């Protein structure tokens, strides 16, 4: 049941990314190009997702366990530091160069787009690099 729910969540998430236009790097870049010919569409993707998300988190907070009996794990970190900011800066630079973020890249890879494969491979390498060399000890 948990596996099926997770699979279905991923599937619906992916369909939403396709419907919203997030899997087209040109559309992502047009959203980020506020000083050029700006396409505000992706703000509606974000807005729509958050509108549902706000309700979901409000419901989730009142529950100690999920429908399948897993402990409800809502992140509780509040630290705002240079890593949080630096991570966002690096992420944004990569997003702006490629027009891909992790979810849409995986969906595009699933559609057989070879370029998405290059991006995903490099992303996995980046995650490894961080864990191996950049993560603070402890």
């Amino acid at each position: 049941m948990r596996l099926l729910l997770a699979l279905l969540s991923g599937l619906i998430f992916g369909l939403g990314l396709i419907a919203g236009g997030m899997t087209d790097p040109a559309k992502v870049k047009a959203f980020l190009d506020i000083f050029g010919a700006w396409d505000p569409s992706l703000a509606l993707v974000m807005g729509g997702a958050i509108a549902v998300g706000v309700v979901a988190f409000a419901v989730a907070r009142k529950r100690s366990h999920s429908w399948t009996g897993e402990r409800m794990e809502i992140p509780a970190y509040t630290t705002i530091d240079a890593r949080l900011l630096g991570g966002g800066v690096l992420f944004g630079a990569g997003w702006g160069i490629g027009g891909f973020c992790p979810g849409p890249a995986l969906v595009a890879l699933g559609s057989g787009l070879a370029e998405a494969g290059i991006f995903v491979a490099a992303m996995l390498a980046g995650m490894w690099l961080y864990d191996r060399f950049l993560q603070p000890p402890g």
Partner: protein
Amino acid sequence: MNIAWNLFTPWQSLVGGLLIGAAAALYLLGNGRVAGIAGIVASPWRALRTHVSLGPERNRLAFIVGLLAAPWAWQLIAPLPKATLDVGTLGLAAAGLLVGIGSRMGNGCTSGHGVCGLSRFSLRSLVNVLAFMATGVVTVFVLRHLLSGAA
């Protein structure tokens, strides 16, 4: 500011967003976890490298399979929308590397901090989102308008 009305797809994008929100809600209420895709990828990837059992990662792996299968499911109903890239292999590799490092360092991505973090009114996530949005805008501005000279 110059809005490209010819590219604007408000309804499709809104529906896409609602679906993403519904998926995040299903994962949260169904499995008790936040649908942050960078984390969903990084965790089994770390387990694989450190030869730790993939057993605890199976929900995340199932989510990834769902993402990968989404284009297939879409095609059953409609043709896939086109994807246009304007960077070469080197650019894509650099982009992937930055997104990989950045998502680990900042502990989240467009879904983890963007969708889920903002949905629970996390100030921490807002800071990260503002950082990646601002840098994304600056990066596109530099690449598109400063370096190439084309508008």
